[in-house]
């Protein structure tokens, strides 16, 4: 008898049937669970959008930029900051990870900033500020392979130096007034609505640098629904959505960086590593819409 001792007393045929049966049962259970995950997801009502949000209200204004002008207070045009409440020209990752935040969820202590909007030279801050983390704009298999945004990563989107709409990826529109066509410059929103700005950040990382000398070249936008070989790591796409309490003729609107098409955004990632990883695993890769807590809605 050279069979494994624990099974030696059981008839061979029974053992075979039991083994296959158990494996089939296991396989069946697994397939049911994976099918559920793929088709309906937990709760049966899961929404098939790869997304988790952070809502981060206005925190403060400073003419500082810890990415573009680190260590040089007053070197920048005026910025409006969201998220971490401590950000200034000297801010490092260490400062952010222990800082208070305006974000829901509170676990997001990242810093986000944009050029301040002025109406008749009076600063106007957005009253609804949402940062969506998305798995979109690439093939499904690329979404399924999304990696967490590394802590300390800095990303800049948009073109603060745009000399015209053609040099810009800015998008202005009106909340609750979809009939107004979006534009790269400010739009005239009907009374009772809010002017809003959308900005998508690059989602392909070079896998190596948390920043680069021009603050752009460590990140790239997808090409043909995939990340280019120079920037092979797919991370969640950050979409910044700002709703400003202004409407009507935009003639007196300006950004600290210039016209509407100079809209840009800066992101300094300070999400706790485990919280970011959990959201990527539970929301982005399986394509499930999550709430602020990073759980399926």
């Amino acid at each position, binding site marked *: 008898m050279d069979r494994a001792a624990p099974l030696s007393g059981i008839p061979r045929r029974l053992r075979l049937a039991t083994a296959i049966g158990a494996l089939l049962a296991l396989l069946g259970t697994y397939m049911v669970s994976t099918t559920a995950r793929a088709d309906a997801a937990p709760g049966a009502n899961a929404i098939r959008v790869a997304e988790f949000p952070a809502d981060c209200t206005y925190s403060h204004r400073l003419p500082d930029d810890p990415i573009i002008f680190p260590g040089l207070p007053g070197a920048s045009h005026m910025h409006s900051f969201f998220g971490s409440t401590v950000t200034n020209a000297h801010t490092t990752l260490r400062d952010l990870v222990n800082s208070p935040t305006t974000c829901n969820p509170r676990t997001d202590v990242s810093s986000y900033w944009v050029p301040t909007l002025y109406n008749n030279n009076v600063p106007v801050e957005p009253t609804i500020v949402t940062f969506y983390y998305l798995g979109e704009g690439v093939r499904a298999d690329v979404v399924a392979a999304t990696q967490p945004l590394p802590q300390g990563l800095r990303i800049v989107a948009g073109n603060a130096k745009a000399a015209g709409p053609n040099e810009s990826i800015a998008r202005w529109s009106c909340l609750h007034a979809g009939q107004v066509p979006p534009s790269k410059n400010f739009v005239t929103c009907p009374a009772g609505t809010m002017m809003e700005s959308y900005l998508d950040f690059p989602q392909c990382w070079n896998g190596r*640098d948390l920043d680069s000398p021009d603050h752009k070249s460590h990140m790239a936008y997808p090409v043909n629904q995939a990340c280019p070989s120079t920037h092979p790591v797919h991370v969640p796409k950050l979409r910044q959505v700002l709703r400003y309490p202004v409407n009507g003729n935009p003639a007196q609107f300006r950004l600290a960086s210039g016209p509407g098409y100079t809209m840009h955004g800066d992101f300094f990632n300070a999400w706790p590593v485990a919280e970011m990883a959990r959201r990527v695993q539970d929301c982005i890769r399986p394509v499930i819409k999550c709430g602020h807590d990073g759980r399926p809605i």
Partner: protein
Amino acid sequence: MRALVAAPSTLLIAALLAAGCAAGPPDAAGTTAPSVAAPTAVAAPSTARATGTAGPFSPTDIAWLQLTVAMAERVLPVLDLVPARTTDPTWRRLAAQIETTERANLTVSRRLLGDSGAPATNPHEGHDMPGMIGADELAALRSSTGKAFQRLFAGHLRAHLTQAVRIAAAEQRGGVHPETTALAAAVVRRGTTDLARLDPAVPDGRGAGQAA
């Protein structure tokens, strides 16, 4: 008999494993992400480089050099306007001296930027920066002469020098590259002197208004 038992089991196990890889939480293994995306590299920022810069220049050094180049390039055309728009020798002399300083600083800053390997421009320098004259303001200067020109020019020059001294002082404190921080110290020293010379010449209530 034993082989018959083993074969289907192996197949089933293989199927289970395959299913697990395809549908389970995609860890780094079994995804299409390249090996550089291993979670260890992602989870430990110390393994990712903080910036792409290397060598003796800090990000603050580079940002200050980029900004100094941008500011000098912006103020030189303003200084160039002076000889044609005012005959006042005090203003012409002041502008010529500041222009000499700015050109020298620009040359050194460009060389240091080249040494650092950083790009000569950055995404934020450009229009509507503190201390930088805008296109509209430059047009207004070009269409004025005499005392009106002097008043506008003095305002822009003061804004430029004030900002230059402010950020050079920050570089002096926060920079690390010796020649760069030495240049910053010189900008602070010279800028402060020039601002003091500008004060009595400017008719804005701060000085005696001798040129007004």
